[in-house]
């Protein structure tokens, strides 16, 4: 038996110094670097983000200036990716269009993520609300997301903002489901129970215990949905429901280009490629994040 003084039980600790742990951020970056797909994805995205951000400095021509003598020219030294029917430089328009497309994705993911996390946490944590929220979400999920986005635009009216809202709403269900599932498993853990036993208020338990532990699936999903939101937004524009010409949004560029498909293939190919590359970049990055944030792979 040891003595009555609890301090006599002090564990010998070989590194008994006040330390901060090797930051999990450093560990995370190390893991991400090992994943080739994630690095490629990140580089693709970085390229598009930088070029769109600095579009006014990079663009060789004014974005909306028409020059009819240059109309429908193929790729050349003067116009790298060719020109459209009004003689506008495709490369320039794509640089500016990237701004619209990426912002649409960002807006859609932020809006749907916020709504999705709130609803998911409510459904997962307050079990009495669960059935109502999930029934509603299940109804939303019965519609294919693009079809629903079209329906919402039909109600709200055609336009860029409405298209963004429509895309955001169509993505909400997947956020709710993922968040709810994660919250359900975290709320049953003993550390949440311990906080309840201490008397911590519900909202503090949600903010301090539940949200930090469901953060990684949310981040992964947000990355993947970023790509598909851009795709949906482009699809809406392509259908003439989103960004309207002369807005150089990528989907709108493809939409305009399809009328000239037989004469000017470059008008559709390059914006289409840009959409494809960005979606690919987000998917690669999302998969990499999933591996890097998975606690089991540590």
């Amino acid at each position, binding site marked *: *038996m*040891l003595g*009555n*003084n*609890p*301090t006599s*039980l*002090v*564990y010998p*600790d070989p590194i*008994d*110094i*006040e*330390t*901060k*742990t090797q930051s999990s951020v450093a560990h995370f970056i190390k893991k991400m670097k090992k994943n080739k797909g994630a690095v490629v994805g990140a580089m693709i995205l970085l390229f598009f983000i930088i070029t769109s951000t600095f579009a006014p400095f990079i663009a060789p021509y004014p974005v909306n200036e028409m020059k009819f003598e240059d109309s429908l020219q193929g790729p050349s030294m003067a116009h790298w990716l060719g020109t459209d029917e009004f003689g506008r430089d495709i490369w320039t328009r794509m640089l500016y269009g990237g701004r619209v497309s990426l912002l649409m994705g960002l807006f859609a993911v932020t809006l749907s993520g916020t709504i999705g996390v709130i609803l998911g946490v409510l459904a997962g944590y307050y079990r009495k609300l669960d059935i109502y929220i999930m029934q509603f979400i299940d109804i939303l999920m019965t519609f294919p997301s693009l079809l629903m986005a079209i329906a919402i635009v039909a109600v709200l009216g055609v336009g860029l903002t409405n298209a963004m809202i429509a895309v955001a709403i169509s993505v909400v269900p997947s956020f709710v489901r993922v968040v709810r599932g994660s919250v359900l498993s975290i709320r049953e*853990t*003993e*550390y949440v*129970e*311990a*906080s*309840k*036993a*201490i*008397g*911590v*208020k519900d909202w*503090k338990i949600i903010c*301090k*215990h539940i949200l*930090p*532990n469901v953060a990684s699936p949310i981040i992964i999903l947000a990355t993947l949905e970023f790509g598909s939101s851009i795709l949906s937004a482009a699809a809406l524009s392509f259908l003439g429901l989103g960004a309207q010409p002369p807005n150089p949004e990528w989907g709108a560029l493809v939409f305009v280009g399809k009328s000239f498909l037989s004469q000017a293939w470059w008008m559709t190919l390059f914006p289409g490629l840009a959409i494809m590359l960005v979606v690919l970049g987000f998917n690669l990055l999302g998969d990499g994040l999933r591996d890097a944030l998975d*606690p089991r792979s540590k």
Partner: protein
Amino acid sequence: MNQPLLEVKNLKTYFPIKKSLFNKKKHFIKAVDGISFQVNKGETLGIVGESGCGKSTMGRSILRLIEPTEGSIKIEGKEITALSQTDLRKLRKDMQIVFQDPFASLNPKMTIGAILGEALATHQLGQSAKERKEKVKELLSKVGLSPNHIGRYPHEFSGGQRQRIGIARAIAVNPAIIIADEPVSALDVSVQAQILNLFQDLKETLGLTYIFIAHDLSVVKHVSDRIGVMYLGKIVELSDKKQLFRQPLHPYTQALMSAVPSLDPDVKKERIILTGDVPSPSNPPSGCAFHTRCKFGKAVCEQVIPREVEVVPGRFVNCHMYDKDYRADFI
């Protein structure tokens, strides 16, 4: 007689199971089925029983982490079953819990300082963040950890060290009673002894009262003053530790005791082997729940639920063998 610190009367916790969409007749799992006991200040009540007998559910029901279906729980004479969540929150610092699994009971994303600080901040113990940090360091040394560990994360600790953190969290709010839910069963035997000694030391220095839940008789024997034996949601025998180990009365207790290995190889003990499994708590046997496995079972056991009999003062048994009305059936 002075007032007991904790008084539990006829506590029941039933979990509903839905049969089907159209059959609305409700069935229940009777996890805790009418438990009554008292715990006096400064004593340790041990609770033993097989897994699935409702020990943990009972512990959580007393804290209202699981809402009890029926019954009364009084802590220092104050009834807590009727309190609203807001009022209950204030009372929570009087009663704490230490969990079984030290790996699941600490938030992996929070430092030790944040975990313990949360308990202090919730009950306004310590005015400033700085003061609370000092208190956390004090707590860490109380449970035998270095105050320098304050900035570390749970995954940097061993199972025993984590359990010490769990204990520190429980004592942070100066509780009157701690429910220890199998606090050592997930640990190595060598570490178990250290943690048990820590419990004993803290009890003496802080004047704590414990309800100590375990399935290991030797652990319970080491820490308890009184012991309650649970079977299928009921306490079948509640007795002083010495008396219980000298002369177990309930047939189930006798079977449990006979399974404890003896240190002396020459001592020949009669082993009572229980046949069959614990019956399902959703469909417990009629009469005495233990009659299906009891070697003394008589017809009366299948029909009548045994009463609580006080054999000697402070010693309770739920068995017809000790009930004067049915005594004759067993002779």
